[in-house]
């Protein structure tokens, strides 16, 4: 098991290496959770893992012993189905015991298929229906603006999720109010539940859309931690909300899952599980 706290005073390469080890652990743990529960959303767990690991093990300020500390940076997983990755991350970060991950989706477990803030420390708002995270994140950022507080708000949305109009209403509000403490990571894996985003209702050009709504936009390889960290860690100042289009691979790290819509909520059999774990260890 890797160390679970961020380390300071290191080179970018050292920081990235540390985050990568956490990400490896999260991927393996998430996959085991899906395998044991016989359900879950492995594709979207795996595409979001690197961004989650970068946030929780390098970028964000938080105290697992005081999860509602007023000065904490906020994180919202708007694509609330990626609980395998989210719960593994929160447990690794110390918000609840790692042993509890074995109860994922078991009767009366607090680790529901979608996160519940009233049960799980570290969860800011209950997600599951897509397109809910952005307005809540915008509200948090406005509160910070009113209070002249220096905490930041991060949000991960799916890309298919951006077909929901609520995201664009919130994006317009954020752009209008220049909510510079707000950072959106779009998990741009180009797949939704049933097919590719561009074959369903296309999102491109996504960068232009956000720019037109008053955001700064950068595109990055969402699995390149060394590229992600400087975009997230506040070292570049923005006077607008920041949208990071993270180009990712759904099912990242497991060859037979990568870029396949069927692994959106597929569950590996024993043989596939074994192969997947080998690949994640390699």
């Amino acid at each position, binding site marked *: 098991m890797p160390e679970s706290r961020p380390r300071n005073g290191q080179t970018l390469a050292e920081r990235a290496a540390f985050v990568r080890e956490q990400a490896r652990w999260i991927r393996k743990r998430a996959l085991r959770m899906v395998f044991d*529960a016989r*359900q879950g959303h492995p594709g979207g767990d795996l595409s979001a893992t690197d961004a989650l690991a970068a946030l929780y093990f390098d970028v964000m300020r938080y105290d697992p012993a005081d999860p509602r500390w007023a000065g904490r940076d906020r994180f919202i997983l708007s694509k*609330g189905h990626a609980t395998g990755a989210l719960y593994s991350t929160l447990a690794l970060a110390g918000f609840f015991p790692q042993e509890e991950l074995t109860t994922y*989706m*078991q*009767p*009366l*477990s*607090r*680790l*529901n*298929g*979608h996160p*519940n803030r009233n049960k799980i420390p570290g969860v800011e708002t*209950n*997600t*599951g*229906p*897509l*397109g809910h995270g952005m307005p809540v994140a915008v509200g948090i950022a406005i509160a910070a603006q009113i209070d002249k507080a220096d905490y930041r708000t991060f949000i991960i949305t799916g890309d*298919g*999720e951006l*077909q*929901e*109009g609520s995201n664009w209403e919130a994006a317009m509000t954020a752009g209008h109010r220049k909510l510079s403490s707000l950072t959106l990571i779009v998990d741009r894996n180009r797949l*939704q*539940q*049933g*097919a590719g985003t561009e074959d*369903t*209702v296309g999102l491109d050009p996504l960068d232009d859309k956000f720019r037109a709504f008053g955001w700064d936009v950068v595109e990055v390889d969402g699995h390149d931690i060394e590229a992600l960290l400087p975009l997230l860690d506040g070292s570049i100042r923005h006077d607008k909300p920041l949208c990071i289009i993270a180009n990712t691979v759904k099912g990242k790290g497991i060859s037979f899952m990568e870029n396949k819509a069927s692994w959106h909520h597929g569950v590996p059999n024993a043989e596939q599980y074994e192969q997947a774990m080998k690949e994640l260890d390699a």
Partner: protein
Amino acid sequence: MSSPVTQKSGLFDCRDAYVKTLEALGAADERIVAVVNDSVGSSKLGGFRDRFPERLINVGIAEQNMVGVGAGLANGGKVAFVSGASCFLTGRSLEQVKADVAYSQANVKLCGISSGVAYGELGPTHHSIEDVAWLRTMGDITVLVPADPWETEQCIRAAAAMDGPLFIRISRMGVPALPRPADASFTIGKAEVLREGGDGAILANGTMVCRALEAAEALAAQGISARVVNMCSMSPIDEEAILAAAQTGAIVTVEEHSVRGGLGSAVAEIVSQNTPCRMKILGFAGFQPTGSAEFLMEHSGLTAPNIAAALRGLLGR
């Protein structure tokens, strides 16, 4: 009406009856279109899409848009079957359902897939135990909760045959085909007495009807004769059948829905203003904890033994 179904063994996913019927209707009537929200798979509409590709409109993950688009298609002369997970179809789009569909009297058929607690472990965001309450209060939209594949088929045929808004719950929970006489027919607004009985009545709909029948069977063995009434049509509702049930003196209602605002409430609204009788409303008390659909039903007492116990409780036996 189509060929009668006698009791078959095994359990059925009512989505299969839904899509089979919709495909048959679609082949005969070009006006029929399906509108989905990235839900081709979960609505089992792959077959419809392959047969009528230009009549399957996937608006993406955008339910408010989906319902509005359905209303627009109806305006253009289509018969729009709008199909998505019931929780999002109703909850997310409630105002579109109210203004664009019910109030506008658009010829839109809202098909709420995997209603109730079918999504089990995915939790309260994905459960749809409020849908009947929300839509029933609008009055100007037909609300149907079929119990088995035969009834699902009849509902879809009735939906296509009528001009106007309709909501139907389509469960994916395995249900048996209910025993019915060969000349059984389905009419919107009519309840179906599945078992005669005079000591008390069990009124149920959807996935709970088979459990109500099982409870009545158990009660009969204990010398209690319980009527079982299938309340598929929630709006309009069969007042006559409810008042007749009230004449037995005791009514238990059972629904895969919140105890607030659904079947139990609808029955209470009628009996309380006409012939008050003792009642017990079985359903879900509110947001559910983690668990499979079957676990959650057990947890809330939506089982045959508990239904039987509820009626015995009312009768003091």
